[in-house]
């Protein structure tokens, strides 16, 4: 049973560029959430996708956008990269409406902005 997988594992970009990160949810899950984790901090919620639509959003600017595909996989796009966007980006999946199942995380994409 494959868990949550993310790609790439590491990425280096420069300021002003754009980046796309990818996530495949755990088998059987239909909901994908994205988090940003700065060094030494807890993860911060970016947004969540269900049925190919953004269901909830955290306090992140419009430079952060996403997409969910019919197979439940998801992408996170960040435009006009800033130095402060350097972080570990985590994807978590779950099954909407399941009262007893928590979110399961992938190992993240480490994004470094030069």
């Amino acid at each position, binding site marked *: 049973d494959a868990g949550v997988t993310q790609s790439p594992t590491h990425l280096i970009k420069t300021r002003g560029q754009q980046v796309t990160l990818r996530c495949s949810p755990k088998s059987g899950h239909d909901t994908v959430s994205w988090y940003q984790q700065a060094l030494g901090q*807890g*993860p911060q*919620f970016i947004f*969540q996708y269900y049925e190919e639509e953004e269901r*909830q959003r955290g306090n992140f600017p419009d430079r952060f956008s996403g997409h969910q595909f019919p197979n439940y996989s998801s992408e996170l796009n960040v435009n006009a990269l800033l130095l402060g966007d350097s972080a570990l980006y985590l994807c978590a999946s779950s099954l909407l*409406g*399941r009262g*007893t*199942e928590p979110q399961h*995380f992938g190992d993240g994409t480490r994004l470094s902005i030069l």
Partner: protein
Amino acid sequence: GESVGLHLPTLSVQEGDNSIINCAYSNSASDYFIWYKQESGKGPQFIIDIRSNMDKRQGQRVTVLLNKTVKHLSLQIAATQPGDSAVYFCAENNPGSSNTGKLIFGQGTTLQVKP
């Protein structure tokens, strides 16, 4: 406002001892709490969860206690092992959502296990 905080940034324990990691939350309407373990270079790994209608829940070597009166959550690890060394996060589900909703994380506590 939104905040889930941890009392201590680092906890050092002797192998074989019991560990207790504490967490305070601010929203009395929160109804679901989760503990995650994060090892270096890895994503958060689910340990145990608890709903607000419970005071205690036990897993394998771990126990979570919830005190709603003082808005406090704790994770107890029995017979701590070197493999338990990691950063531990408590997380709170956004009140009013299902358990698949937005999670609010604390800063994390680093657990160091001395051999």
